[in-house]
């Protein structure tokens, strides 16, 4: 039966901003769905608030709404677009929840919109724990012993029944937000209270603890004729107790006999049928008692998910695309398997002849206050995947894909740490458990002792033990004693050149040179979904130290695009967007495009985005092997963030041509001294700065510069350990606790530009002419990391003349720097003077946002420029002026990290961003806030407490707020600043001033909005509880005065006047 003809327009719901638990895998799935449905003649309407996505590119859908993904916005869009159907399964938990909300409110029915892929009942059955449990009982499948609580009373009753430890999960929260394992009564109470608050249905599932059981996932696809297939099985190396998103996982499952595998397969199909997922992809999670084999169903997701993205990349089977087509009526046998060029149908089960390992990437260092132990609540921010012909190879490749400095299973246990500490690391896992397991083997622990502490299956433990044994042999050997066969045997097990160098106590380059002398190189094999049973011409490749190569090299001109590796705070989907745009541009220019990336969540690792895809670690060793094999015309490093830039030196050394801006220009921009002298020709000041190599020098420098200053250790990325210092006390604290200065680790001290306006400018230069992509104004003042700052396009408070001068200067900078391609500059304006903060001759985080604003892909244009086209040839000499306002707002993971202060500073903490669009700044800002999942109250009590420097703005701000209907509540000092303005202020105690104080008021729901600005460590510390309780009680707050003014503008426009327009119209 072919596709449905009764449907014309289909609404696809995106997943909104990148947050923990919901990353760019949904850009990948949504993009696939849009493309597939349009190819089949449907009109696709897309809603997603995330501008950094490929899916929100105007070419991907027929009507693209970058608007908040909430039912209110969707209702307006449905009214306008009148879709026949809504596909809720591509946008993660957000997509499901909002679609369910639309159904429950009768909006879908009212507008005759059919839910396809998963209907309301199926979503309810899968997501409502109580219903799910009943479904499983009816199927005769076991679930953990459990109970549902809608109150603390219920929770205590259940505790009596199942005891501790137990697992607590709030219903309808994503990534397990608010869930956890309680080992004692205090934890039990804490997690339950928090969970009840977070669950939109005020419901908790409290489960018997299966901690230590083996954990598996099955990726299932079903069509309307009830044909079901398993695309992939996944086994978690970390047993139950760690969220699957935080677990190291392996595909396919390694430790199941066929009987057990088939039991899981059958159960998965039963679950889908019972839950009522009629078409599409789902995943079902199981736990297995390692001693008896008893099988228990944990949960299922009636939608594509992070693991289905992983399964798609692991097998080459495009689950999201297939799921979208099944939703419109196709059956599996009618669809072709793309990767075998249609030689086989989609109705088969992929089989693979390699091992895939996924390792999650964490960012705990940015949240030092939080507990970094892994639990059932997801905490990782990204992941890598690697492919090898055995587990050890894929595992060790995955390790070096992480880009966290690890090149293998290095020892991390300190010598003075005892076995007790080690045991704790094994039994209460953090992100490095497998490394500690290796250390346990090194210390001579027995297999059984280790297993008893961590319950990681012995099959995996044995693999680690073998690596440790080999490492010992290597470390006791000499490089010259390693012959070709032995070298091959180590490489087959995945040992990197760098790890071998560590073990041999020599330089990585020496190992590499020696290996080249021995002529030991990897071959490249194909991912083909069928274990070579059928011929595949698709170039989805991975390296392995096996015998025969399958990657045929063409004689076409080819370019390698280096991706951005795992998502992490500071480097996320924006760079994948740029890489994909580059690939598309090169293909348009008929250049063979070769993509290298290690992140399975991305669009760039879709095998049809480029001509050839190498799923590989982006480190020198692996990239150089690909270059050696392909001999490309050049390599592009400016789109993948820091990841490819770090390899520039290696490329230069090896004579690899870097396309676009030259490495020396990059160096000029990044080297402080060179840049300073470079800049002397221009009308830019630089904030005064000093480099201190000792504590004395630091104090002396600060004295010269005067407070406030920004300090950071030199050579750090993403604002790590960067701090704004206002007082001697703060400085003392910083120097003793955060950064220890030494001549090797000097400290950079920079005068902080208080009260400055900060701008981001992205340009494209072809070596001669420069195109201004756009100028963004940060809403928060300088001092907050640009990635964490909201920003407005066009600038909302900078004069035209000033902008004009600035653009002219920036153009001159780009030209003199010999930029070919993209350049980003961060500029501050203070007292009508321009200060250059930094210049980055590469794609910046704001490129996708800006591209959406101007309706033209800057990364694509830059790619063509890199190939030698001039801007004139491309017909792009004039800046594209915006027709409306757009605001970018960051989204933070504070609710996932208990005890973390949600204050903004020079260190980046946001995981994602949203875009709001509107006729005026106020509307755009309001929508951005809404898109970020917060809501500005229309009236009520606003608590105001600001630092001295901000007090001059208070009368104006508070007058406006009062006019809008707010009542002002303020601390004594702040209230004094309002004296004589006639504004009625209710004074409230600071926390330290005695009770009842502001936090009491927040907890009593007496505060509706908070404007709280601070300076200095002490004042930040004093007000921590205000921000934290506001966060936990969903009270809207801003930590800047400019944020306060933006709120005012937004309210002045009024939500009821918001308009929704697709990108394609502007």
């Amino acid at each position, binding site marked *: 039966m072919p596709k449905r003809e009764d449907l014309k327009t289909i609404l696809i719901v995106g997943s909104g901003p990148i947050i923990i638990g919901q990353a760019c895998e949904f850009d990948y799935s949504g993009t696939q769905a849009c493309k597939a449905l349009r190819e089949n003649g449907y009109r696709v309407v897309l809603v997603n608030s995330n501008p950094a996505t490929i899916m929100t590119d105007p070419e991907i859908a027929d009507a693209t709404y970058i608007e908040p993904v909430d039912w209110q916005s969707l209702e307006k869009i449905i009214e306008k677009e009148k879709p026949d159907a809504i596909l809720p399964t591509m946008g993660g938990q957000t997509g499901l929840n909002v679609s369910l909300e639309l159904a429950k409110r009768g909006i879908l029915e009212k507008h005759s919109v059919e839910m396809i892929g998963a209907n309301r009942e199926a979503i309810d059955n899968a997501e409502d724990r109580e219903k799910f449990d009943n479904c499983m009982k009816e199927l005769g499948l076991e679930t953990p012993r459990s109970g549902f609580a809608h109150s603390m009373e219920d929770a205590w009753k259940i505790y009596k029944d199942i005891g501790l430890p137990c697992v607590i999960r709030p219903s309808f929260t994503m990534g397990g937000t608010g869930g956890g394992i309680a080992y004692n009564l205090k934890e039990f109470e804490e997690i339950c209270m928090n969970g009840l608050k977070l669950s939109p249905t005020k419901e908790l599932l409290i489960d018997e603890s299966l901690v230590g059981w083996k954990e598996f996932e099955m990726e299932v696809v079903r069509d309307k004729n009830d044909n079901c297939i398993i695309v992939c099985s996944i086994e978690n190396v970390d047993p139950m107790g760690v969220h699957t998103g935080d677990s190291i996982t392996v595909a396919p499952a390694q430790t199941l006999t066929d009987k057990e595998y088939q039991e899981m397969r*059958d159960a998965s199909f039963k679950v889908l049928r019972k839950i009522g997922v009629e078409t599409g992809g789902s995943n079902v999670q199981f736990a297995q008692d390692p001693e008896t084999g008893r099988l228990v169903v944990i949960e299922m997701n009636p939608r594509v998910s992070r693991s289905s993205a992983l399964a798609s990349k692991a097998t080459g089977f495009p689950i999201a695309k297939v799921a979208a087509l099944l939703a419109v009526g196709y059956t599996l046998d009618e669809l072709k398997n793309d990767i075998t060029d249609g030689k086989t149908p989609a109705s088969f089960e992929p089989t693979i002849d390699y091992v895939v390992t996924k390792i999650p990437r964490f960012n705990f260092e940015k949240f030092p206050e939080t507990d970094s132990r892994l639990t059932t609540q997801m905490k990782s921010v990204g992941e890598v995947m690697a492919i090898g012909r055995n587990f050890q190879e894929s595992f060790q490749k995955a390790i070096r894909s992480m880009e966290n400095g690890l090149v293998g299973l290095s020892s991390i246990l300190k010598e003075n740490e005892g076995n007790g500490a080690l045991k704790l690391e094994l039994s209460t896992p953090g992100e490095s458990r497998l490394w500690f397991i290796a250390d346990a083997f090194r210390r001579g622990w027995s297999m059984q002792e280790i297993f008893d502490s961590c319950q990681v299956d012995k099959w995996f433990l044995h693999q680690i033990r073998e690596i440790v044994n080999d490492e010992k042999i290597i470390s006791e050997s000499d490089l010259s004693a390693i012959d070709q066969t032995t070298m091959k045997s180590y490489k087959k097990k995945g040992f990197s050149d760098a790890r071998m160098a560590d073990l041999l106590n020599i330089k990585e380059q020496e190992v590499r040179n020696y290996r080249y002398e021995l002529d030991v190189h990897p071959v490249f094999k194909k991912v083909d979904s069928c274990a070579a049973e059928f011929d595949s011409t698709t170039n989805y490749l991975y390296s392995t130290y096996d015998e025969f190569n399958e990657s045929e090299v063409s004689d076409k001109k080819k370019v390698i695009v280096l991706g951005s590796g795992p998502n992490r705070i500071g480097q996320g989907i924006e760079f994948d967007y740029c890489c994909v745009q580059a690939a598309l541009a090169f293909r348009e220019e008929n250049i063979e495009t070769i993509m290298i990336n290690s992140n399975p969540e991305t669009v760039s690792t879709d095998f049809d985005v480029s001509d050839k895809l190498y799923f590989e670690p982006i480190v020198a060793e692996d990239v150089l092997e690909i270059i050696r094999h392909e001999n490309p015309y050049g390599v592009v490093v400016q789109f993948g963030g820091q990841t490819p830039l770090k390899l520039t030196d290696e490329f230069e050394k090896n004579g690899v041509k870097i396309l676009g801006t030259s490495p020396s220009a990059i160096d000029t921009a990044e080297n402080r001294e060179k840049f300073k002298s470079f800049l002397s020709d221009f009308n830019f000041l630089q904030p005064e700065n000093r480099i201190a190599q000792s504590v004395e020098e630091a104090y002396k420098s600060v004295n010269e510069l005067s407070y406030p200053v920004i300090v950071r250790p030199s050579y750090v990325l993403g604002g790590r350990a960067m701090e704004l210092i206002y007082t001697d006390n703060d400085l003392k604290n910083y120097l003793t606790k955060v950064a220890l200065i030494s001549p090797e680790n000097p400290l950079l001290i920079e005068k902080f530009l208080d009260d400055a306006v900060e701008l981001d400018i992205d340009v494209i230069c072809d070596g001669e002419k420069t195109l201004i992509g756009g100028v963004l104004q940060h809403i928060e003042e300088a001092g907050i990391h640009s990635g964490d700052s909201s920003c407005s396009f066009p600038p909302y408070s900078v004069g035209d003349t000033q902008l004009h001068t600035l653009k002219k200067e920036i153009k001159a900078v780009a030209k003199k720097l010999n930029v070919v391609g993209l350049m980003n500059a961060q500029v501050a304006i203070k007292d009508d003077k321009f200060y250059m903060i930094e210049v980055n001759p590469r794609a910046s985080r704001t490129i996708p946002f800006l591209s959406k604003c101007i309706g033209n892909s800057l990364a694509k244009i830059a790619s063509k420029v890199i190939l030698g086209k001039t801007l004139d040839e491309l017909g792009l000499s004039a800046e594209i002026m915006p027709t409306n306002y757009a605001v970018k707002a960051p989204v933070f993971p504070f609710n996932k990290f208990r005890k973390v202060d949600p204050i903004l500073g020079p260190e980046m903490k946001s995981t994602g961003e949203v875009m709001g669009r509107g006729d005026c700044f106020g509307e755009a800002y309001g929508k951005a806030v809404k898109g970020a999942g917060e809501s500005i109250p229309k009236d009520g009590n606003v608590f105001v407490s600001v630092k001295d420097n901000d007090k001059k703005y208070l009368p104006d701000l508070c007058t406006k707020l009062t006019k809008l209907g707010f009542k002002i509540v303020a601390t004594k000092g702040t209230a004094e600043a309002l004296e004589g303005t006639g504004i009625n202020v209710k004074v409230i105690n600071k926390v330290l001033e005695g009770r009842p104080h502001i936090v009491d008021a927040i907890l009593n729901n007496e505060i509706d909005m908070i404007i709280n600005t601070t300076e200095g460590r002490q004042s930040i510390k004093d007000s921590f509880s205000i921000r934290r309780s506001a966060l936990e009680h969903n009270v809207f707050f801003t930590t800047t005065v400019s944020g306060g003014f933006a709120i005012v503008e937004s309210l002045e426009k009024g939500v009821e006047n918001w308009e929704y327009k697709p990108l394609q119209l502007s």
Partner: protein
Amino acid sequence: MKFGAKLLLENGISFEGFGFGFKKIGVGEVVFNTSITGYQEILTDPSYDGQIITFTYPHIGNTGINFEDNESKNIAARGMIVKNFCDFPSSHRSKMSLEDFLVEQKTICISDIDTRHLTKILRDEGCKIGAIYPTQLFTDEEALSEINKFGSMDGKNFTENVAVSKQYNFGDPGTNKRYKIVAVDFGIKENILRIMKSLGGDIVVVPPSTSAEVIKALNPDGIFLSNGPGDPSVLQDAVKEVKKMMNLGLPIFGICLGHQIMSLAYGLEIEKMPFGHHGANHPVHDLKNNTVFITSQNHNFAVAKVADRDDINVTHKSLFDGSIQGIEHTSKPFYSIQCHPEASPGPKEFEVLFKRFFEDMNA
């Protein structure tokens, strides 16, 4: 303990690797199987007699060997080829390692060769006769002469090696068994018997040479023709007897080799496939119900075509290559299937086919 070993193909291509299991030369037709799980079932499947199995999944031996999952008492395959041989199994049911099992069963394995490359050779050039041998004990010349001695698969009767020579009852007879089934053993997989027993079958397993008269004398409710190894064209006696069985008025159900023998009895032609079907992920189209089953497959021969016949219908086709997978008689309760509804290893969803057999015995 591992030892130096080699795989030599009839076309002279050779691979060096490590040997595991029993130190001897194993000669047979080299085929590849793409199942990820189920090496124990595959190794003990009698249909693999005369063949050497290349496992495309690169870790084999992970779950060891248990006492429940064998498909027959012995390893029928003449050898196995893997990428990585697991010497440290982990499974709560594991009773011995794969290596010990191979030694016990006097079977040789070669590991650490590029199995994907080998698979591509077999796919592109068709199955090859090959030999695995410990390099200490055999020279290449000796191996080649063994390969030549083996000759070709065509015309060889392997069922004699794996089928019973005396009839026996499967399981304990007389306890609540509702249907008497005679199963003609050409190399039967035990899971077929287990399934039929669980459905209420009282099963007598008889040798492949059993005549229709003898079967009739057993007074069964239905006749089952089993799977088995090798070329069906050498089983002309069996074909003759099956023709006679078709006159007994009893339901007849055939699987794999049994299906091919029934097809020969209908007068259809059987052809050798280039590299056969061996795996657990093959889609089979049920033409009557327009649904797709994912099936377990293991065959190198297939029914060539069914043209303009009134008495029989093609019921199932492979969605991989369009080959015939199932045939039924239009008026009599005869049906046969090329793939393996008993799974083991592989998807179990095709087990429903057994139900039809039991319904017809009821009728």
